[in-house]
């Protein structure tokens, strides 16, 4: 058996071309919540290496475990094989150091909201943007995952402000093969195009949007949810039937109530407050029932109850949890 030799390949290039780096071969994700997990999972699924940076060892472990469980669900529903799962997990590396994103050409900040306030800490996000810029290369792109007006404010923390962009992954509906890509005030065309390339690489369509509260998806959805709640409160139909009507009748993947439970009611309320503040229109003001549920910590699937009730693995156990008596 001949001895196996290993050599670098670069010097063998036929045409002495400039060394090109693979675009998006390694990306950084800051945060360990469900959004960060979803982004890491999607990028790794399509062959990219991912560094997932968390606050402490515990939350990184929880995040990796969360991704692993999500992939198990895909295996159970026949969409993935165990060996493909191993490869996907093998491409995700957990880290506690922001500096480990140094060789990433794309870093996405996706820290979760503070469970107490429901807000994603802006000061912390600004700090992350600055820290990331210190370690990454000149042309690396720094992004946030958001649905509100924030990217321009985050960009203004940086030396190279044109390298920023905001994305909105539809984490809660994996079948939604779109990503809203938000151009901030500073975002350069080149950066925007490269991010569109990234979206293409993860087999999703770009929905180009300008920086605006709620962008398209949330601005329209929250109004629908409010209307759904008022329809329920007026006793026009039961919650289950409202969801069913929108699901079957209008082809939504989930109805408005189930969607809210999946997203988390506390997040929905924050988006609505944000829209209300921005546009001053009554239609964005969270319906009283929504506020009441949030105060009662019935925040959706992740707390075991929101509009509906769920078991520990997030399966719906009660359809009638909140059904009002229809008079």
């Amino acid at each position, binding site marked *: 058996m001949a001895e196996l030799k290993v050599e670098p390949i670069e010097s063998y*290039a*036929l045409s002495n071309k400039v060394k090109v780096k693979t675009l998006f071969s390694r990306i950084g994700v800051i945060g360990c919540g469900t959004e960060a997990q979803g982004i890491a999972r999607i990028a790794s699924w399509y062959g990219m290496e991912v560094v997932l940076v968390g606050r402490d060892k515990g939350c990184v472990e929880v995040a990796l475990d969360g991704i692993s469980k999500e992939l198990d669900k895909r295996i159970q529903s026949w969409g993935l094989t165990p060996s493909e799962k191993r490869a996907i997990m093998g491409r995700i590396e957990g880290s506690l150091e922001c500096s480990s994103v140094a060789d990433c050409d794309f870093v996405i900040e996706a820290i979760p909201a503070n469970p107490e306030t429901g807000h994603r800490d802006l000061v912390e996000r600004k700090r992350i943007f600055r820290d990331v810029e210190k370690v990454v290369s000149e042309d690396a792109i720094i992004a946030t995952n958001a649905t509100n007006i924030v990217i321009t404010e985050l960009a203004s923390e940086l030396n190279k402000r044109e390298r920023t962009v905001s994305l909105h992954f539809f984490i809660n509906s994996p079948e939604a093969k779109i990503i809203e890509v938000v151009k901030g005030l500073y975002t350069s065309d080149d950066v925007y195009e490269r991010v569109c390339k990234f979206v293409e690489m993860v087999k999703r369509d770009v929905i180009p949007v300008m920086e605006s509260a709620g962008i398209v998806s949330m601005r329209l959805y929250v109004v629908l949810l409010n209307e759904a709640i008022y329809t329920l409160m007026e006793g026009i139909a039961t919650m289950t039937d409202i969801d069913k009507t929108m699901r079957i009748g209008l082809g939504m993947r989930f109805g408005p109530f189930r969607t809210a439970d999946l997203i988390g009611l506390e997040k929905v309320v924050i988006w609505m407050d944000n829209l209300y503040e921005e546009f001053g229109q009554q239609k964005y003001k969270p319906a009283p029932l929504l506020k009441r549920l949030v105060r009662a910590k019935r925040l959706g699937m992740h707390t075991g109850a929101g509009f509906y009730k769920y078991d520990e693995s997030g399966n719906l156990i009660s359809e009638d949890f909140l059904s009002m008596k229809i008079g």
Partner: protein
Amino acid sequence: MKILVLNCGSSSIKYQLFSMAGQNWDVIAKGGVEKVGLKGSFMNYKKENGEKIVFDGEIIDHKTGIDYILGVMLSKKHGCLSNLGEIDAVGHRVVHGGETFSSSVFIDEKVIDKLEESVSLAPLHNPPNLKGIYAIQQLIPDVPQVGVFDTAFHQSMPKHAYMYAIPYSLYKKYGIRRYGFHGTSHRFVLNRACEIIGVDCNSVKIISCHLGNGASIAAIHNGRSVDTSMGFTPLEGLIMGTRSGDLDAGVVTYIMDKEMIGTRSASVLLNKHSGMLGVTGISSDSREIYAAAEEGNELAKLGVEMYDYRIKKYIGSYAAAMGGVDVLIFTGGIGENEKRTRAGVCKGLEFLGIDIDEDVNNSTRGEEMVISKPEAKVKVMVVPTNEELVIAQDTKTIVEKL
């Protein structure tokens, strides 16, 4: 004459450089590029003297990969070419030729247009094949290129064999019909088998079993494919490592309803979770399944029985389709190396004249051999396949006529 053979997959490139001297074809370099466009890409290279080298580094796309393959072949340190002009032609494996290509072709702009049109029939395979063709056009534009299709050999099937009994309009609209695959392999082993036993391939009835990770069986009457088990996609027919093969289409819609899955997951289910892996729950690797069966694992035994039985049914039906059979060929990784599969398939087919010599079968592994008893009516043979050589030979024939 030197011919480069390329087989471009979605993230890989396999290559072999053939040199023809007299009637002999020598492989002077071979290997593969893996993880094209992904982190950790590398290139394997095996020299004529057997020395193996791995080249590490970023290989962002197929063009870069081919650029490096040519670069290494030209290099002082490891090369086997003094200049690129030594490459007389490039032959490409192309998975799907649709109904347009019934034999290998010289690739010109018109052929490329037709290949672009056929992408919808093989969305996973044809685009990388095309990338390889474009890369050669850019890197060594004066070198003629030839396309050799997996489907071409089966274009001789009669219409009653290749049509599905679904609305004819769907055939017109989307080209839904049986195309068959592994054509290059079936063609190679049929010719080789005829050479070995000294018969005219235009006057024999051959059944050829290509049993590898993917598996298909072909009925070859007078040198022409008249039926094959793979269909519109390589999912139909025999049971494979992870593919179900033949299945009641009603099962598919029933599972999709019950498991609430879409077309994508259904495709993964039938292509990757099924077959021998799905039945046995052990592996898609026949060696591991046989090992488990010998230890008494019931599902492994069942898997082996199902695997052999499916092949046996096809042999019976193809013998009926051709009105007999003269030669039965085993090829592909399992067909060439697995005596137990060959024995299991042939058992009970003595009424057809298929009668193998147990001792010869048991001692045959990966080599050309007639394994039937001398007096048996049907010659049962093991013939290792060599698709790359067929591609090189076709390429030579076509460019010599230019």
